[in-house]
């Protein structure tokens, strides 16, 4: 499924946060959006999945969603957004309950995604009993249970410590290798973007404009290898050079609350 972001602009009151952003997601790719804090990355993601109404522009989807897709545009949230009164299985079930699935198929889907995310033994656990990394695995399991056409991930790992983040990055790479879901990955972490994305889009500081898109030619699974270290470092430096100045200015800006 293809998703075209067409001339999106957005403002909160007098504050312009996005200015004429356009790009097209290719089917099956992972597109990372990076930029300094407050540049409108999360706003753009909210607009792409229909949770926010843009001030101008539109998002157009074309092509059929995958087989068994229940919720074409599905989010993974930074703060996990799990219901604390539901078990792990119950949280995944929430995404399925309002669809006409048989009880057997619902159970099958829940079991399948829990196994895929390494949660099979935690089906009856409650979120408060889990570590941050396991909670986000529940968030990811819930998202893939609906077989999304586009997975919209809003800084999914930024609430986690560095080691947990590395573990989840490996999990995500494994899951994507299997599911091949088209994904948008918003982050302010260059390393995450470089490990996970096929293409990286760079947004300027507020108002966010898409200033460049970098294609990473090395397959995801091979990026950690030493022979690609030089190329990865070069990409990292190029990305950092394109956002460093904006990040510095953004950091010194007064908060508009």
């Amino acid at each position, binding site marked *: 499924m293809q998703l075209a972001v067409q001339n999106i602009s957005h403002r909160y009151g007098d504050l312009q946060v996005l200015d004429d952003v356009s790009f097209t997601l290719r089917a099956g790719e992972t597109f990372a959006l990076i930029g300094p804090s407050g540049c409108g990355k999360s706003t753009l993601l909210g607009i792409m*999945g229909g*949770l926010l109404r843009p001030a101008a522009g539109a998002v157009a989807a074309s092509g059929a969603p995958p087989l068994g897709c*229940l*919720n074409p*545009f*599905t*989010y993974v*949230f930074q*703060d996990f*957004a799990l*219901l*604390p*009164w*539901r078990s792990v299985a119950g949280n995944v079930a*929430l*995404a399925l*309950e*309002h669809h006409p699935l048989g009880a057997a198929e619902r159970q099958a889907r829940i079991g399948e995604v829990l196994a895929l995310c390494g949660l099979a033994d935690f089906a009856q656990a*409650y979120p*408060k009993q889990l570590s941050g990394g396991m909670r986000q695995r529940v968030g990811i399991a*819930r998202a893939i249970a*609906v077989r999304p056409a586009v997975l919209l991930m809003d800084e999914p790992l930024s609430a986690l410590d560095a080691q947990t983040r590395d573990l989840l990055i490996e999990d995500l790479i494994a899951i994507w290798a299997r599911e091949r879901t088209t994904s948008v990955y918003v982050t302010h972490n260059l390393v995450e973007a470089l490990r996970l994305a096929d293409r990286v889009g760079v947004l300027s500081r507020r108002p966010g404009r898409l200033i460049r898109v970098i294609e990473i030619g090395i397959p995801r699974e091979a990026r950690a290898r030493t022979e690609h270290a030089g190329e990865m470092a070069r990409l990292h430096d190029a990305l950092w050079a394109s956002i460093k100045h904006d990040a510095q200015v953004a950091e010194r800006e007064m908060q508009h609350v």
Partner: protein
Amino acid sequence: MSETREIRDRELRGRDLGTVRFRGGGFEPAGRRWASWLAFAAIILLWQAASSVGLLSPVAMPSPLAVVNALHDLAASGKLGNHLGQSLYRIGLGWLIGTAAGLAIGLAMGIFSVARAIGIPVTAALFPIPKIALLPLFILWFGIGEPSKVATIALGVFFPTVISAYSAVDNVPRNLIRMGQSFGVPAPAIVAKIVLPGAMPGILAGFRISSSIALILVVAAEMIGAEYGIGAFILAAGNLMQTDQLVAGVVMLSLLGLAISLVLGRIERRVLRWR
């Protein structure tokens, strides 16, 4: 002045610091069951001792034994059950009506802008009225019998329930509601599966407040005009200077309050197991 300071500085420097002294701890009140029971027993024993040696006149303040005797006699004659039953019936019915209406209005105010715009000023204006002041009006409307008392309790329960329900809905994290929307969960299911369970802690906390209000109002209403009920019983005992009966009635109120909070505690533990 600078001389004394120099001397002090020299003394401070000269001293060996030695082992690091523990200075944390404390300020963490924990359960000490035995202490609670011991204090309780001590108060009653002291009270009994003061009565036995004649420090307390039996007319002004009956001894614990006299109160227990009075309670026993009341229970044996069946009057206790009668009074208690009447009061419980009024509290139960009034609380149920007030809570049902309060939850309906309060949840609506938590969800719909128009309901909130109407509800907040109305609640602000009517909530501060001591509801017992309206009993005479209700007596004119409904007569001296049960409906006027039940209506007073229901109204007294209604407003705090409205306030706790809508603030409980406000406290449901918005991100959970957004999550429900992002998965296409229909609005009624979002209310049933996300808003209501999320508001439950606040609603149950409100039950504690409203149940104690119901207890106050039932006694006040029964003192104004009732044949049976703990409030009426306490008033009658006071008029006849039967202080043992009077204190027995007060003890029953204390036990009733304890029982209600025990039941609510059970419900909270069951419903909020996930916390």
